[in-house]
């Protein structure tokens, strides 16, 4: 197993853990962190699978940089919304029935 594939496999595991966290956890902050874990997993797969023959490919690195910018923006938005929700209602999780 090459080092690239080790990174990719780790990334896949991290991604799965992240998805499980976003779906199964209740606390908003934990879910936001889980989303970041998920994103990092995808980035590792992206960088890992693209360097099979030893040479470094710049394109996935550019993609990961773009992805990090997106993830930072999404995290900032999520934290802002979660803080605002906490200020207004004192809740740190989404209750199951706020529709109808």
């Amino acid at each position, binding site marked *: 197993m090459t080092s690239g594939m080790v990174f990719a496999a780790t990334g896949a595991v991290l*991604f799965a853990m992240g998805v499980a966290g976003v779906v199964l956890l209740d606390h908003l902050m934990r879910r936001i962190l889980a989303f970041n874990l998920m994103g990092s997993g995808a980035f590792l797969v992206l960088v890992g699978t693209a360097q099979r023959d030893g040479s470094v490919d710049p394109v996935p690195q550019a993609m990961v940089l773009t992805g990090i910018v997106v993830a930072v923006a999404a995290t900032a938005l999520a934290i802002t919304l979660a803080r605002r929700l906490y200020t207004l209602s004192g809740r740190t999780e989404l209750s199951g029935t706020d529709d109808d």
Partner: protein
Amino acid sequence: MTDPLVWLIVLPLVWASVAFLLGPSRGARLAVAGLGFQLLLALDLTRMLMTGGPRRYAVGGWGAPLGIDLFADGLSAIMLLLVQSIALLLAIYARSYFKPGAASRHFWPMMGFLVAGMNALFLAADLFNVYVTLELVGLAAVGLVAAGGEAAQLAAALRYLFATLVGSGAYLLAVALVYGTYGTVAIETLAPLIDARPPLAVWLAGALMLAGLLVKSALFPFHFWLPPAHGGAPAPVSALLSALVVKATFYLILRLWLGPFAPLAAAAVWLPSVLGCVAILWGSIMAIRTRRLKLLVAYSTVAQLGYLFLIFPLLAPDGIALQAGVLQAVAHGLAKSAMFAAAGVLIIASGRDAVEGVAGAAQHLPLTLFAFALAGVTLMGLPPSGGFLAKWLLIDAALLQGQWWLAAVVIAGGLLAAVYVFRVLRQAFLIVPENAVIAPVPRVLEWATFVLAAASVLLGLGGMEIVRLLGVGAPT
């Protein structure tokens, strides 16, 4: 630098940024002017496509793989026209809907970023740019849902945000797997590379992409985030999201399904249509049961999205099912924006978001009620509306291929739509008690709503133009 492809993305970014710099609640006039100009650009692009065929543009003169290519064919042009025309009418609507200093302080910049993201998505020529545009659309849409600032809206926005982030995360992982296998993400280059027996990683990528995009399209059972988000947001926001944003991911599924992933499509061909059938029935039943007016319209979106996914098993032999799907996307976009706009007017008038609150609308707001009914005609699929044409073609395609049960679901869905539309209309003709207060409503709200609804019905007469445009650069 005069190519409409670039300006359709740059222009909304510019007016959104200027609107943000102008400060809270400013920039409405700028938005209307910008969207008007974008509509002209989209029409110009359509004219170019009709005469010159599909168009490609390398941004900044840098070609793929390091540069960014934009690509437009008939399908993209239809979606671009739909977005610019609905967004323009909704911008005119929103200008009078939002009172100065009200909850919607950052509506205009976020609407601009949303439109820019959608335009970029319809013009993206590689899978990674699609990811970036998906995120741009998702974040702007979440911001719009939260714009009202109440706790329920924030909770709905967060639920939507997590759903959309998981969806685009799955999509990004799929892009990583595709790049790892083929070393490219350009849609055009990928198409000949993927054959009927691809490696396991590509199967996995296809499944992840489909799952991620279905979550973002709110197809049953992933619809859980849609009713609170669309039902709780201010009316112009609900209209933008229900009419356009969920269509963007449908467009993407269609494009990938017919394009590079066509060899893999056979494996999952029944999945979207079975989920679509359940969505039609479930969404309609929930719309019939709910007591809130906007939630009724939101559940109707869950149902109407189901029709879009019925077409997938019927796509193969000829173009009828594709035409049905695209016409349904356009007809539903116009009708649903009209219906949310009408619901917004009715809620302003009655002061509450309840189906019962509509009572007396027939006397006080006949134009709005007429618009609501016209939109209902499209959703039910009665002639001569665009919805009729779409559902007729869909039934035609289903019967031609012996899938009579799909035709049965289409007809049942139309009857169920009639039930929830008439629930509202019946209320509207009730006599209001003497002491009821009916707030005055600006006329421009009513007229913008009416134009959207009338367009959804007249689409039935102009449907052949859309079919002709769809033929430009069609994959078949």
